């Protein structure tokens, strides 16, 4: 156990010892840390909640085969201990030896991709990660990578042009700078961190066993992984989080296994990775992942974190329910499996009795007669909290009648809910337009949603019913 964290900041090994450090605590965000340092003010605060991307930085890590992976993340949502064992890269790192610009910077200059410039370092870093990851250019890839960076001046057109320009160039082979970073990262200590100050303790266990023990010892501690929610309590409400267990360094939670019948996905798998993992066998899940927050969020937010918050408007739960997912809970005493249909007990409450952590989710691979679709209605197509979200599962028998149907909705009640009445009505009926129209009438009255800033209750009801119609229309094509 260490009381300090070690990471590489723009090519220099940096150690923060929280016991002797007076300026920072373990719940200082990386954004606030950087902006307090001399010479690192390129990173900007535009919203301090992960919506604007002006604070985007890149985390570089060594992957299994000794190469670097690059992730663009929102520094306003990340606590300092998350940097432990990693490299933090900011816009200042991109400067060439003789002051020359990095290709992404050069492209932005040439396309007039910067006007007021406040968002620019964030865009530079999002593009830099994309470039370093040698991403193939397509407008879709560029849009997806940049949707988490807001710009009010350019209309994005010149920035998308810069992305095209720079991604079509082939990045240079591992540069000297990259090799140096790899050497530095190899030498960083990786063991667990435990900081205990007068006001706060913060644990960053490195193994599952440690995590389970900590969970036993500190049952009241806040468990977090991506910390996309927890950071706001510190920066917006000036709260001190007295006890934190950060699971993000537990490699065993980031696993993924595939059998003939199912996938088992660790709770530490990020949404971005889940999107790739699920592409072939769970396409509806993959699509939902694509519109889950921004890329910066997807790269730190995890499957377990999203399930753990049990948000009534969370995007993951409906689709995982449609896939008949089972959650695997773990404690020192063993494992327990709970169907996701029964996992959420009430508003932001989950069934996590004596088991202490969400370990993984198992998803059975659906058969050919199973049709699953997901829908998300939001004011903006992406990077937006859902007004209504839905996931539908339909199993037809060979006579085109409904063998089994599951209609799962988010945003319609205090929890994610199935439309049981409508499901019961549909069970065994012929799958046709008439049936769907009749079902819509039941569906409209099945929920009593609320009116809020996002939408009125009536719209939610109508939209929920319309989504079923949309489902039918899509399948009948």
């Amino acid at each position: 156990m260490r009381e300090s964290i070690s990471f590489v900041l723009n090519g220099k090994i940096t150690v923060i010892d929280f016991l002797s450090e007076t300026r920072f605590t373990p719940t200082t965000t990386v954004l606030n840390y950087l902006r307090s340092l001399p010479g690192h003010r390129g990173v900007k605060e535009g919203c301090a909640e992960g919506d604007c991307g002006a604070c985007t930085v890149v985390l570089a890590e060594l992957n299994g085969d000794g190469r670097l992976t690059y992730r663009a993340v929102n520094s306003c949502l990340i606590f300092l201990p998350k940097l432990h064992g990693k490299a933090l890269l900011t816009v200042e790192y991109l400067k060439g030896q003789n002051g020359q610009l990095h290709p992404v910077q050069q492209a932005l200059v040439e396309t007039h991709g910067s006007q007021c410039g406040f968002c620019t370092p964030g865009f530079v870093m999002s593009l830099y990660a994309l470039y370093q990851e040698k991403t193939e250019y397509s407008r879709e890839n560029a849009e997806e990578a940049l949707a988490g960076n807001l710009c009010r001046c350019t209309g994005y057109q010149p920035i998308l042009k810069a992305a095209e320009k720079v991604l079509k160039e082939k990045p240079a082979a591992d540069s000297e700078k990259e090799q140096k970073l790899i050497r530095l990262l190899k030498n960083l200590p990786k063991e667990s961190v435990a900081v205990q100050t007068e006001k706060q303790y913060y644990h960053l266990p490195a193994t599952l066993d440690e995590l389970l023990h900590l969970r036993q010892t500190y049952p009241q501690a806040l468990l977090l992984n991506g910390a996309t929610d927890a950071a706001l309590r510190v920066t917006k409400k000036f709260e001190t989080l007295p006890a934190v267990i950060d699971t993000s360094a537990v490699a065993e939670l980031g696993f993924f296994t595939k059998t003939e019948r199912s996938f088992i996905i660790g709770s530490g798998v990020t949404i971005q990775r889940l999107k790739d993992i699920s592409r072939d066998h769970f396409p509806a899940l993959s699509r939902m992942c694509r519109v889950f927050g921004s890329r910066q969020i997807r790269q730190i937010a995890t499957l377990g974190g999203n399930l753990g918050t049990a948000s009534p408007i969370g995007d993951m739960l409906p689709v995982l329910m449609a896939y008949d997912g089972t959650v695997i809970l773990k404690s020192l005493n063993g494992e327990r499996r709970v169907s996701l249909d029964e996992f959420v007990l009430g508003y932001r409450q989950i069934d996590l009795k004596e088991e202490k952590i969400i370990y993984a989710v198992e998803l059975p691979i659906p058969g050919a007669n199973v049709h699953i679709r997901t829908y998300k209605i939001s004011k903006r197509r992406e990077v937006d909290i859902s007004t209504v979200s839905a996931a539908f599962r339909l199993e037809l028998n060979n006579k085109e009648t409904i063998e089994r149907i599951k209609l799962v909705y988010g945003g319609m009640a205090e929890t994610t809910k199935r439309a049981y009445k409508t499901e019961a009505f549909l069970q065994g009926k012929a799958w046709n337009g008439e049936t769907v129209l009749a079902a819509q009438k039941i569906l409209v009255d099945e929920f009593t949603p609320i009116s809020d800033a996002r939408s009125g209750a009536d719209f939610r009801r109508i939209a929920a019913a319309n989504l079923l119609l949309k489902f039918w229309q899509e399948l009948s094509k």
Partner: protein
Amino acid sequence: MSSFNIIGKREPRVDALGKVTGAAKYADDYNLPHQLHGAVKYAEYPHAEILSIDTSEAEKVPGVEAVLTYKDVPGANHFGLIPNIRILADDHTRYLGDVVAVVAAVDRRTAQKAADLIKVKYRELLAVFDPEEALEENAPVIHEGGNEIVHHKVRKGDVAAGFEEADFIIEKTFKTQPIEHAYLEPEAALVYPDEHDGFTVIGCMQNFYTSHKVIAAALGLPLNKVQIIQSTMGGSFGGKDEAATLVAVRAALLAQKTGRPVKMLSTREDSIRQSYKRHAYKLYYKWGCKKDGTIAAMEIKAVADGGAYASMSPFVTWRSVVQATGPYYCPNVKTDVYAAYTNNNFTGAMRGFGSPQVNFAIESMMDELAERVGVSPLQIRLRNAFEDGAETATGQKLTHRVSLKEVLIKAAEASDFERKWREYRSEANRTKTFPKGIGLSCAYRGVSLGAEGVDAASAVVYVQPDGSVTVSAGIIDMGQGARTVMAQIVAEVLGIPLQRIHFLEPDSGRVADSGPTVASRGTIMGGGAAKIAAENVREIMKHTAAVVYSVSPAHLGFRDGKVWDDNGKSSRPLCTFEELTAACYARGKPLFASGVRHVAETNWDEETGQGNAYFTFVYGANVAEVQVDSATGQTELLNFVSVHDVGRAINKATVEGQIYGGVAMGAGYGMMEEFIQENGEAKTINFDEYYILTAMDVPKMKAVIVENPDEHGPFGAKSVGEPAVEMAAPAVTNAIYNATGRRVQNLPANLEEVRLGQKLRRNVQRASVACKIEPK
């Protein structure tokens, strides 16, 4: 085609390097040792009398250095066009963004904690949140003298006779929503006492000459004891006028009280809560039309929500009244535009400045007219469009090139408008799950301030002894590219490379008061002044060259970094620019000159609403192509064409930048953006609730630049910043109509509006207006 060296070129922006490397310094990037941090205490009722303010608990918090209320303001606590904005609320609160007290402490957290301990006693008053209700007789009075901020009129011809003559009437009501500027950089200022009993303010103020006056008056100091340094600005769009002044002046008061540097920084939530918005309008349009598609009469009434303070309401609504009838012939006009106080966030300048609201109504009406007459939206516009020499509703004869038809035709051609419009209005398209639609809009816009204010701008050009040049104008760069444009203009006049020019952000001691950088006047006014200043310097150089080389000054040319004798048939180089510079200094001729740009006269009669409102106008046309999800109402922007006659593009890439950004902002206004308040409480205070378009939402855009040089602008340049944004929304809603057959009359065209034809939540809000707070 042109004989310019650098005008019109796609030069990289002169400030691009600092911006892509993160080196650019914004207001919050400045810090000083021992600086304190400010925090604010907000009003707790949208409308209340303040009975007492108890700051004693806040003062006891360790680390707190000062707590100020209005009583601690040594000078003027009021400011504004109509000076009713309070720096610190005194007798009343008028909206929930009013600040009752400010705190300076060693860090933000301490300052905020202390601010939370301030106790204020109020007597609640009846509040009003609807401008029409506010104008009713028994409405709660928000300012002495009543709630009507202003009432502008235009009277032309005889509308009654016009309606008599008409074959049919189109009458419609439209509503537009308040929106947030959403500059990415929130307001910030650092103020420190300087060595001669004065203060220096570093901040991001769009109209820093105004900020300068407000701060000096509040501190009780002469103007020359307050120096304003403009930091690089992270966007403004009209928003960092009073909003940024408030942040800066509060920091200044705390700096004066403590004698230490004070940083005042708004979080995004502070920024949205405090700052003014674009006015919400209710618009009543009645047109008397003829079968041939012409318009015999227009009767228009508009009511703008001015919110708690007057701010720019009188000017914003003046532009509305001038432009309310659009660029269309109509002999009989009666227009009334009102602005009223309410207990909502105050509203003020925002890119467009009173035109986006009326353009939405006009361009919706024009499509309705096309539908009634049975011609296409393009044909109906061509039938009614102003031409050279046209007379506007205010009786102004247009003496410049009126290029409205040119831009309309170019926009239609570039988008294949006529064919697609016909295809999409078919039943076959409209019954699809995802029908497509295409919509057209156009507008004209008076350039610069017009008859609403005094209009002059200054610049100084200084050729330093080594031949490098600094230029400074009383116009600031908020991101739009003024630095680059000014530098290009000076480089063109002096015939030297752009890299030799450095644009200095103005500070309050450097360039004479040039008025605000608003009204798309940066290039035409500031650029005009820079051109004159550069020409004045060149004159000095010419006279020296004439003496040194015994040539006539009239024949001297400046280009390619050299000075040329262009006398006779051939040109010959006399010397380099640097050599001539050295010669000037050697002869005691320092190369420093200023330039002042005045404008052609404008005039206005308040009673009749007649006069030459603006010295020139610009013309533009937009086409939006959308796809609507008939199940959910979700509208996707597919393509966008935006055509603008800018007079002359000084830099084509910066002009395109303005157009792309304007389209995104204008289309967002059309379909997504909305600042939501419920009983005066701001509900959309960060980007998780206040939506602007992302890279995934923007359409594929095509910008088409039309150039008809104008005698008033430098090298013929006019404007583009606001034209780019002001007509995008109706292009989108007209496209939605084309796709669905349903007209959106309330902005934004969000899911509910498109799918259901109404806003459910808005109805909730309207109902809640009735539950006013009763006085105790």
